[in-house]
Structure formats: C-alpha cells, structure tokens
C-alpha cells in the first residue's frame, strides 16, 4: 500500500452514499442474468466481447434483433448504469467512486434508438466522471476501470463513451482520447499488472451502493437460505 504521503489526494472528501437504488435487483430472472455478477467470471482475462451466436443476435437491414437484447435494452437507464459503477473503488483509497463523488447519476446519459430524431440505431451510454483533483494521476486508471466494468455489465449492443467532466482535469482532452481509443485500451488491459489493479477496483463493484456491512449481512442470509450456515 502506498504511504499516505505519496498519494495524489491524501485526504479526499468523502460523501455519504445515497441509499442503494430500489429495484437494484438482488433477484435476477433468467433474462437478467447479465446483471448478476456471480455469473461473470471474476478472474477472467482481458475483456471478451460477448458475441452470442451471430446467427441469432444479428440484425441485417431490418431483420429482427434477438428479442432478448431488445428487451434488456429498454430497462437500462442512467440510474441503472450508475448502480453498476457506483461501488467501483478508487485505486488509491478504499472508498467507492460514489463516496468520492467521482461518479453520479446526473452525469450519465443513456440514449436509446428512437429517443429523439436522429438518434442512432444503437443504444449509447455517455459517462462523465469527475476526478477528485484537477491533476489526479489516477484519472486514466479510474476511467479504465469504468470501461471494463461497463464492458462486463452492459449488453454488447451498448456503445460507451467515457469522458472527464469538462473543466475538472488539466489533461482532460488527452485522457478522453486515450479512454475512447479501443486499441490503446485493449493493449493496456493485456498488461497483467494494470489489469490486476483494475480488477482490484472492480471487486466491490457488484455491491451497487450497499455498504460492506450490508453486503456481508446479505451473504450471511444467503448462506443460511442455502443451508450452509452453522
């Protein structure tokens, strides 16, 4: 662990997180399987772009899109995206991005086909995050963690743009360009050390705003339900 003296922002302001959103879905129907983080392999290698079977999930020139995809797409809004990322932890501090006010739902925009004239035919997420200080050296790492989290947690149809909240970082444009260059991102995530740090930030992500205590209690309940408690 870094000594406090070498951290960028040794004393970050901690914000009390909002209550975990209602409907954040601890239960998952079979169609919500992608939301259930237990399904995702926690120690998988660099992100894989889940394809499904091309024969069923394709839409060519007006052919029907796989019904499941269409249904899932309707349910994702800015609050849902926020829920997915709020508990990602900061690389330097054992605090979530929500607690540090690095992310908030108001800075997330989800656009779906048909939302407005000229809206693209694919769903889009635009996520702006606010580094804690304007020269935060961890900004790229935070952005990378957000990208990996959404890659794993959103259906592949979503095009995601991750940007620094305008005016909140001195290298805003350079970082934005890096985070949205998929070749650079892919190459970076092939680095085991880097990917390890990202994974560390994502370990808590499935908490969706619950505190560690709440999360532990829930695990306890589940264990009892499943008959493996003492």
């Amino acid at each position, binding site marked *: 662990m870094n000594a406090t003296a070498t951290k960028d922002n040794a004393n970050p302001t901690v914000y009390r997180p909002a209550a975990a959103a209602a409907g954040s879905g601890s239960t998952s129907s079979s169609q919500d399987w992608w939301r259930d983080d237990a399904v995702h392999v926690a120690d998988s290698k*660099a992100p*894989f*772009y*889940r*394809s*499904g079977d*091309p*024969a069923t*999930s*394709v*839409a*060519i*020139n007006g052919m029907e899109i796989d019904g499941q*995809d269409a249904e899932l797409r309707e349910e994702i809004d800015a609050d849902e995206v926020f829920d997915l990322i709020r508990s990602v932890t900061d690389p330097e501090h054992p605090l979530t991005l929500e607690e540090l006010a690095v992310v908030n739902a108001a800075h997330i925009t989800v656009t779906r086909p048909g939302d407005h004239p000229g809206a*693209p*035919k*694919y769903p889009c997420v635009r996520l702006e995050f606010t580094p804690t200080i304007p020269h935060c050296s961890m900004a790229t790492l935070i952005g990378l963690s957000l990208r990996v989290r959404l890659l794993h947690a959103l*259906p*592949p*149809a979503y*095009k995601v743009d991750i940007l620094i909240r305008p005016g909140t970082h001195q290298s805003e444009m350079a970082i934005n*360009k890096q985070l*949205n*260059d*998929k*070749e*650079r991102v*892919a*190459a970076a995530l*092939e680095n085991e050390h880097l990917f390890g740090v990202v994974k560390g930030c994502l370990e808590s992500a499935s908490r969706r705003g619950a505190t560690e205590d709440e999360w532990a209690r829930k695990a306890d309940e589940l264990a009892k339900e499943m008959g493996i408690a003492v």
Partner: protein
Amino acid sequence: MGEPSSTPSSSSAPPLELITSLPGHNDRAWSAAWNPRTNLLATCSTDRDVRLFSHSRSSGGHGDTMEGEEQVRFALRETIPTGHKRTVRQVAWSPSGRTLATASFDSTVGIWQQLPPSESGVVDATGSANPSSSSTGMWDCIGTLEGHESECKSVTFNRNGTLLASCSRDKSVWIWEVQPDGDFECLSVLMEHSQDVKCVRWSPREDLLASASYDDTIRLYLDDPSDDWFCYTTLTGHTSTVWSLSFSPCGNHLASASDDSTVRIWSRLDEVQCKARGLQPQGKVAGRAGDRWVCTNVLKGWFGRTVYSVDWAKGREGTLGRLAAAGGDGRICVWEIAQPEGEEGAPVATLIASVEDAHGVSDINCVSWGPMCKAEQDGGEDAARFEEIGEDDDAEMGGNGSDTWGWNHLLASTADDGSLRVWRVPIVSLGSA
C-alpha cells in the same frame, strides 16, 4: 480545389449481399487479408491465432454468366497458433502470396511461409504426403522482426515484395528490405509522428509509404537515393485519430478513415498541376518529379462512430475504383469513385451499396476487397491464373475465361465478436459493366 462534402442523400443504396458468416476467432478479430495469388483469406485476432480460410467457386460451367449462378464457399483450412505473446493486430501477404507477415501487440512482426507438403504432413498408407492441416500445421515462422518498443499496429509489403513496413505505438515507422535469402534488414526508422502510428500502406505504383497516426495526421515517405528515407509531407485535416489508409489502384489518390467519423480522399497534384495553382511541389528526388497531396473529398455523415477501416480496389472500367469503409456503428459503405468532372474538380463518390449492423452489434475492425486476377491487373496477355486450393490441397490452375473478372467484388469484414463475413456487391449496382 475545394473540399466538397459528400453527405448522405435521401435515396438509399442496395444492401451488400452476405455470402457467408464464419464464427472465426475466439476473441476480437482485428484484420483480414486476401492472398493475392491463391484462394486463401487470412484473419487475425486478440486470441493470438491466424486463421486461414480457403474459398472456392462453383459455377454453371464454362461460358455461363457468373451473375446469379455462381456459388462461393468458404471453409476454415487452418488455425495457426502464432506463438505471439499478445494480440495479433494485422496480417499482410507478400505479392507472391508465399509469405505472410503478422504484426503483434508483443511488439514483433512474424514472418511466415508455407512448408512443402512432404515436410509438413504425415505420410499415409499409400505413401503419399497427406498434410494434416490442423495437427501439424503447414505454415512455419521463418523469422521475427524485433525492434519496436511497444505494440505493433500494422505491417505491409510494397508492390514488388522487396520492402516491408511496420509501425507501432512507439511513434515510429520501420522500413525493412526483404533479402533474397529470406532475411530482413532494417533500412530506416522514421520517428516523424508525435503519437502512435496506427497504419502503414504502400502506394501500388511506386515505393511511396503512407502512415496514419493517433496524432490526427497522415505522413508520406520516400527514399532519397542519395540519402535516406524521409517524410516529405504531412496531410492534416482529420480532427481525430486516423485509423486506416488505402491508395486508389492508380496511386493518385489516398483514402483515410478516422475517429472523427469521416473518410477523406486526398488527391495528388503533379508538378504541372502544382505550378498551375502556385504550389511548390514536394518530394522531388532523383527519378521522381515532385507533387502535392490535397484533401479533395470529405465523406461526412455516413458513420456515427469511429471509422476503423478503408479499402480501395479496382472497379468498373473508366472509374477510379470502389471504396469500402466500416467502423464502430456497424455499418459498411461502398462508394464508386469516378474521375473528376473537369480539371479543377474532385473525384466523385457515389454510394453503391451499404449494410447496417453488418456484424450485429459488434464494431467492424477491417474491410478488405478480394484480390484482382492477374490478367486484369496488368492487362497481360496471359489467361487468368488463379490457383485454387481444393479440399485435398493440390494447387489447380483455374484458367477458364470467366476468371478474368476475378474476386474483386467480394468484400471481407471482421468484427469485435471474432466473426468474419464475406459480402458481394450486388450486380444491380454495377450498372452496365
């Protein structure tokens, strides 16, 4: 010359016809390349493999019109576990079709050649060599080019197969000489870009190299016979990373694809045209008159996200060819590029085919036109030579007259879900060709 924008008109073009969809790789498929001599198509991926597909055509017979009667079939011939330690980003064939180069994120370039059947396979009961393509593999790594300091992004052979260029995130472009004994010697390391170099491509007419970069520019390089390779001009105009380049078959135009969601066409003004416009020609070296490259077309409004790939191939007689482009919004567009109307005009781009969601929801990383047959390429008197690699791997000469139009209207595309698709430009959009 102005920069006319070609924006989408209200009339839509017919869709590309899907010939085949192959599951391909286990992870993102970055690039596809057609062998210019044989019927192999190579793809490469984050999964570190190169896949070789063979294609074959069956027609109604000699003399039948190919349109409407031809069937094209693709089959996976071989999966080469390249041994690269990271993603294989691009594959490129030498003009002879006998050498394959792979550019990898592990910062090296692999050079591959096919072993003769007797060396690569097992001998079966009848005593004849029976290559087992899946277990023993027929492609062997004969060399590794090292030197780049970070991920290699692109590799490409020049028109004669005598030079190879590679580029990397280390901002450099390396030019290698292909030596007769199969070795490669580094001729030049060019550090002109200020950021990653995404793509390198040789002109089909001369040893002129173009590079595309994360720094939003395109650079052109020449060999000064009395000195060294040098960058003779920088093309600016794109407002974000330039991902891909492709010269027109005549070599007088260059298409580029960018993160700014546009495709640009840059056209070469020769010495005379330069002087007529009061421009100083550049790149004048022994044996070469100077020229200037100016942006003549901005194809804007066709794509909603990054355009990752362009490819420009020969088309109908009298035109500059067909330009294909694709990117992150899943759309493939094909334009026919016609000669400018007058002396001052820009090439005219007309959309002749397109398809939405070409690989479902996945980004498209590469589009690549099938190769031309030899007879059409150099107007030679030979009947078309096209080696077909059949099921039993014997090379056959496909020499009937109907081969002269070749494969040039087939287009391969690769995507983030690992898939490879092959498309045909619909006949109706070819006009009276």
